[in-house]
């Protein structure tokens, strides 16, 4: 290693990471690690957990993970810019309540859903405005709007719940794609996923988000509109959360003010597990989707194996800690080892 560095003195980039071939660079990423872990967990579960291979398992897994899958997409955009959005679960609750209240007042489901989506966009815009225009830290802002949006949702409905929705819609939320065990909701999710992957990884806007996360001032000097980009990320977060809220309402035929309470931390845990850096500037959506699925698969496998929900909570927490600690410590440890040789 030292000899190589001396001979190739013209090339300052003699670091191993840059010397890797293209294939190795793709395979040895954090995202691939999570995907590999997901595959291993699935294989082990199929081999050892009774009934895991049952088609119903997949159906329920995808159905219940769907809200987190949806919200994890814009959450990644937000975290990549080194911001955070803690209000997403409250937007889910608010959108759920809006749909419930409007349909119970005789509105059609379609118009009610559109109003709920618009309110989601408004919620995101309020967050975005406070963070980008007023210049407040997003952690504090969204702790505030977490309480505010949830408070409006609970205030509108109190402890009552609205449970009657048009059968066609609730059936659609529960239905599978003809002849497969895959819930129908995966089609809109696939569309959203493709849009977000293109947006984050293949457009100047997405590259700008990464640049903002790495260095705000450098991004601004290279012509990235920092404020506008962050604002859009927050608006997308509100919009997708509201969409997830509508789905949540239909899936459980239940509009309540406290729907999805605490989901914000589940989403963030999944996003971070998927390899997105909380410092911003690093992460990829395939890793995030694998992260959400990993938590979902572990949950349903443990449940089927007769292990209770609390153990799943512990596993989720440990997984998150181990993955981020390993990601932080291993490179440092490698550097020390390389320095010794």
């Amino acid at each position: 290693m030292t000899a190589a560095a001396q001979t190739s003195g013209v090339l300052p980039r003699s670091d191993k990471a840059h010397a890797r071939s293209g294939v190795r660079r793709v395979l040895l990423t954090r995202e691939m690690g999570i995907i590999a872990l997901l595959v291993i967990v699935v294989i082990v579960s199929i081999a050892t957990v009774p009934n895991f291979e049952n088609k119903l398992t997949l159906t329920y897994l995808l159905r219940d993970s769907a809200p987190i899958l949806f919200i994890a997409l814009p959450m990644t955009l937000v975290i990549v810019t080194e911001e955070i959005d803690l209000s997403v679960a409250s937007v889910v609750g608010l959108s759920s309540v809006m749909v419930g209240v409007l349909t119970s007042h005789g509105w059609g489901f379609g118009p009610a859903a559109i109003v709920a989506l618009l309110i989601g966009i408004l919620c995101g815009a309020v967050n975005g405005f406070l963070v980008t225009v007023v210049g407040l830290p997003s952690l504090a802002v969204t702790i505030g709007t977490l309480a505010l949006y949830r408070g409006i949702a609970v205030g509108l409905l109190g402890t009552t719940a609205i449970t009657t929705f048009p059968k066609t819609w609730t059936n659609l939320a529960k239905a599978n794609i003809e002849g497969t065990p895959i819930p129908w909701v995966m089609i809109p999710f696939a569309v959203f996923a493709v849009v977000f992957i293109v947006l984050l990884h293949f457009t100047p806007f997405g590259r700008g988000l990464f640049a903002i996360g790495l260095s705000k001032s450098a991004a601004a000097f290279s012509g990235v509109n920092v404020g506008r980009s962050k604002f859009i990320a927050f608006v997308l977060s509100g919009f997708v959360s509201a969409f997830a809220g509508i789905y949540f309402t239909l899936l459980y035929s239940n509009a309540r003010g406290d729907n999805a309470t605490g989901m914000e931390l589940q989403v963030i845990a999944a996003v971070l597990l998927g390899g997105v850096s909380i410092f911003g500037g690093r992460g990829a959506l395939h890793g995030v989707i694998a992260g959400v699925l990993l938590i979902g698969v572990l949950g349903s496998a443990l449940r089927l194996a007769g292990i209770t929900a609390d153990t799943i909570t512990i596993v989720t927490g440990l997984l998150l800690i181990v993955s981020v600690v390993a990601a932080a410590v291993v490179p440092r440890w490698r550097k020390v080892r390389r320095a010794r040789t």
Partner: protein
Amino acid sequence: MSTQTATPHLVQRTRRSPLARLFAARETGIALALLIVIVVATAQNPKFLFSPDGWRDLLLTPSIMLLIAVGSAIVIVTRNVDLSVGSVVGLSAYMTGRLFIDFPGIPIVLVFLAGLVFGGLLGLVNGVLVSWAKVPALVITLGTMYVYRGINITWTGSSRINASDLPHDFQALGTGSFLGIPYLTIISVLVMVVAGLYLRTRRSGRELYAIGSDPDAAHLYGLRVSRRVIGAFVTSGALAGLAGVVYTARYVTVASQAGNGWELQAIGAAVIGGVAISGGVGTVWGAAIGAYLLMTINRALPVVGINDFWQRAVVGLLIIGAIILDRVLAVRRAKALAALREESA
């Protein structure tokens, strides 16, 4: 030289009379808001303040959140955050009950001590992970929040602590008072005063502010950043552990979800009280008053005729209002300092 003439001028500007300083303090504003809430609620229903139950609830209800908010404030000052406190409260509350069941006749002082030590150990785990792995506290404590809560649910199972499990003396501690002030409130206020004086006067307390203002500079300056940050997390954990014991004394029933979601309320209380989420600014008095305001509004809303379902919305508006206010004040202060510099140049 110009700086020489400027220095006394600067000193004059910063050394104001104690009274003027009191009026200018960020905490005074929030205390005033608390006072207004109490006055308005009492005007609507005198029982809010002038009845034995009203007076007791007014003092007692915020005392648990106050402890957690003080701990959170200490961590936030160092530019970290502790999301695990709610789970620590739950664990410690259940442990309190278990101690009384498994060791009949255990001295109450020992139980309080056990809560402090146990919470401190849980905080130590957070602190060591944060400063050793150099992973943001938000991520680590999000993880430990789940782990601690999971351990709690496993431990508790479907059982719960009931009043019949607790000794009479301990229950009396939850309901009793000294000179009209509930014991639990006295404990919380004492802890707050000690923590406040420590942050204000001790060298290591001031170092927490230096670390929060600029961790890299603090490190270069030679401050033992890791040790201080770990200390902050241990304190936060210990106070949450203490809050768990107080929780059991106050409510005498503990299920596995005790303290669930309190972490964000505690951070909210600190922010309302003027603790900057970006570190280096704020006091535990502020956080304590913020916690008091938060819990008192909860009780005042139904009294003034607003359905208490709206409580969280009001709290949200308060948090947002508080950070906007802090921002405005910070901008104004920066402008004043710049003007002062130009004046003296």
